[in-house]
């Protein structure tokens, strides 16, 4: 199949790459560009490990074609820390022990970041938090620590910068 040019921004950097237009976004991120923080857990949109942010929206990168993000900003887990400083939600995950094996963590963090961004300045209810991360499966933690971590950030217990 004829390759096509894809232009988009990943974690603030501009990329221009030639790809098979059927390539999934997750494969462009992991294999073509080499950011392996985004994980592949099922390749069918049912586990959430590959969640990234397209603009400010959480998207399962195994379920969209890379060509669909033409001209857009994509953020992966590698884009969360700024100047070597962890983002509030990363700090909270650390303090609350919101992971064990850590494989779901990048996707979970991206869903949480999108959720918090969408509700900036508002204290989220537990129900809203559950809704925000319901597409992300975790087999290790039992979710409680993840909910508590997101709640803490939402309550403003962790500040940016």
């Amino acid at each position, binding site marked *: 199949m004829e390759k096509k040019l894809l232009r988009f921004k990943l974690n603030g950097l501009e990329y221009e790459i030639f790809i098979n237009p059927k390539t999934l976004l997750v494969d462009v991120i992991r294999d073509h560009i080499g950011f392996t*923080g985004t*994980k592949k857990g099922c390749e069918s949109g049912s586990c959430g490990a590959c969640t990234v942010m397209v603009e400010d929206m959480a998207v399962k990168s195994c379920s969209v074609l890379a060509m669909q993000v033409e001209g857009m900003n994509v953020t992966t887990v590698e884009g*969360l820390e700024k100047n070597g400083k*962890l983002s509030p939600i990363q700090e909270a995950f650390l303090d609350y022990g919101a992971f064990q*094996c850590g494989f779901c963590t990048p996707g979970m963090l991206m869903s949480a970041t999108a959720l918090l961004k969408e509700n900036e300045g508002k204290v989220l209810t537990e129900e809203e938090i559950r809704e925000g991360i319901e597409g992300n499966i975790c*087999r*290790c933690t039992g*979710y409680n*620590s993840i909910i508590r971590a997101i709640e803490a950030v939402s309550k403003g217990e962790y500040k940016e910068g």
Partner: protein
Amino acid sequence: MSFNIIGKKIPKKDAPFKVTGQALYIDDVELPGMLYGKILYSKYPHARILHIDTSKAEKLPGVKAVITAKDFPPHFRIGFMKDNPPLKGTKVLSTRDEIAAVCAISPEIAEEALDLISVEYEVLQGIFDPLVAMREDAPILHEEVGSNILKLPWRLVCGDVEKAKKESAYVVEDTFTTQWVTHCCLATSGCVAYFDVNNNLTMYSNTQIPSLAQNEFLEALTALGLRNRRVRIIQVTIGGGFGSKLDTYPYEYIAILLALKTRKPVKIVFSRDEEFFATSPRQCTITKISQGCDRDGRLTFREVEMILDNGAYTSWGATTPSVMMMPISSLYRVPNVKYTATCVYTNNTYCQAMRGYGNPQATFAIESSLDHLAEESGIDPYDLRIINANEPGEITPQGFRVTTCGLKECIEEVAKRLNWKEKRGRGLKKRGVGIASLIHVGGGARVYKSDGCGTIIKMDDFGKVDVFTGASDIGQGADTVIAQIVAEELGVPVEDVNVIHNDTDICPWDVGVHASRTTFVAGNSALFAAKKIKKKLLEILSKLLEVPPEDVAIKNGIAFSKSDPQKSIPLARALRRIHFTTGGSMLMAEHFYDPQNENLNKEFRGNLSAAYAYGTHGVEVEVDTETGKVKILKYVAAHDVGRAINPLLLEGQIYGGVLQGIGYALSEKMIYDNGYLKNGNFLDYKILTVRDVPPVEIVIIETNEEAGPFGAKGIGEPGLVPTAPAIANAIYDAVGVRIRDLPITPEKVLKALKEKNKG
């Protein structure tokens, strides 16, 4: 006892890597020139292979090697009973049987090549029910074994069950069945194998048993004609274990052979589909149980007969009866015990270790049956458990020497928090409460010749400590707990302790991350190594500070005289002083710790573990009698953990265990239809999501186990052991139906309610 670092909620050591995407998992490993391997599985659950034609696949551009059974030595088998050829050449016994494998320059080409391999089969009648496989006229699946019943003599007899049964005031008998469930590690299985120019093998691996896997791969190399080679196992960040990686699998030997043929690194990573059907689940069981008690509620006997579907080959699943014996003989005081288990070959998937190692299946039967006995005898289920609770100092019929035991406290605490006396037996609003307890190994488990773990410690010129441990981290936090133990003992900040745990070239031997043993065994190993290095350190500091060694203390990396705190020296400076001098020295120490526990003898008696973990779970449910749906209103999990080294990580183990346990109880089931898995994906196989999480209260009971590091016992598995019976008992209390078959789906509840109403 007061501690500086023990008992603190310290984030996991690898947290920064895991929250930034820097942690490398198996699928993230890329080596120069790497090839990608794929496996062709059998189309049928039982068939003869008449012919395999790989010629078209071999010709596909980009394909570098195609292998079949012919490429392995003819009698090479893997698994603990050596009944599993990595590639099957003449006969297939299950739909996950590996027939051929390909490696190519891309995963897509490898996949395409698989489609070009043609296999001619002669389809045979499959056997999918262990009871059918046990019949005398059933076709024999493994001709070389000569029987579908495995030659594993699981039989424990303590006291006189027949006599006790006759003398009991109350006796109940029930049959319970459990289903296949799978680990669902979020990262799928995989490895990268490569040979250097000297034919030494390096495996990037997810294994939970680096030292044993090393040994098994060495045997494989020998079988392949490569004698006296080296095998190095490098564990990547492991994306979930739960027992799934306690054995070596055919795919690993396939990767090794492909790497050997191509002289290139070969990566095999499972798809989610493969992860579901081609890894080994928890076994399903059929359990007939009978228990009795006297007029005062004291247990008189327990008799259990069990049949396990072994599947087509044998992995550690077949040895889970050795652990099932533990609760059967030793959960509550019961003087007369008889247990037999039969493992049967079928054309189903073969089974493995999974968190609890048989204990959840056995405890489901014991604790459900105990509730039945409570009803039969008219004794409150809580009282029945208190009457029979284990106590410190007791020796159980199987020969377990109980040291610390907080079972009574666990039962009492759970009942209190559930408001048991108020809520039990009311059935108001279709609500009910239930409890169930557990015993598990908490001080290692001598299931192998050694239950040991080695540690090497060195200190550098900057006062920093490197700990090389045999322990593996599968997310539970071995890295952090070991760092805390060493930091506490040495008086250095926990940040100054670096734990290296993933490379057999530099880390000492360890039997593996299983049996909830790592904190206890690897923790003790690290503690004793730290004590050794501390002794050397104190002698040196005593000279430098010019005070006796017993007067030296270390805190936050500063050494000082206890009697004259003005006399002090930073550890780093002291270490440099002794290093950079004529005839200088650097501090190092090692320790190999092997606990004082015993292999079970031929009668399956012996003190299997150096300490035992106890716990009780209590649950309040509401049952919707219109839909059969069970809602958990409250969940309390109390555990005797000896001591919580790191409550943050410990609670994580319990929360995670409880959630897996609730899935086991209510929703998870691998549905097999004549040997084919029908629900191998996250949409149809129902693990709990964040939507399903009930409120869980955790109670930590500290009994300070003398043999444990700073008093700790194991906690990796107990969290899911008593979950299913606690829920089943609560459902019975709520609506009066006892479900004896897991998972307790709404359909089963509805059906039972209908039958009850009819009767």
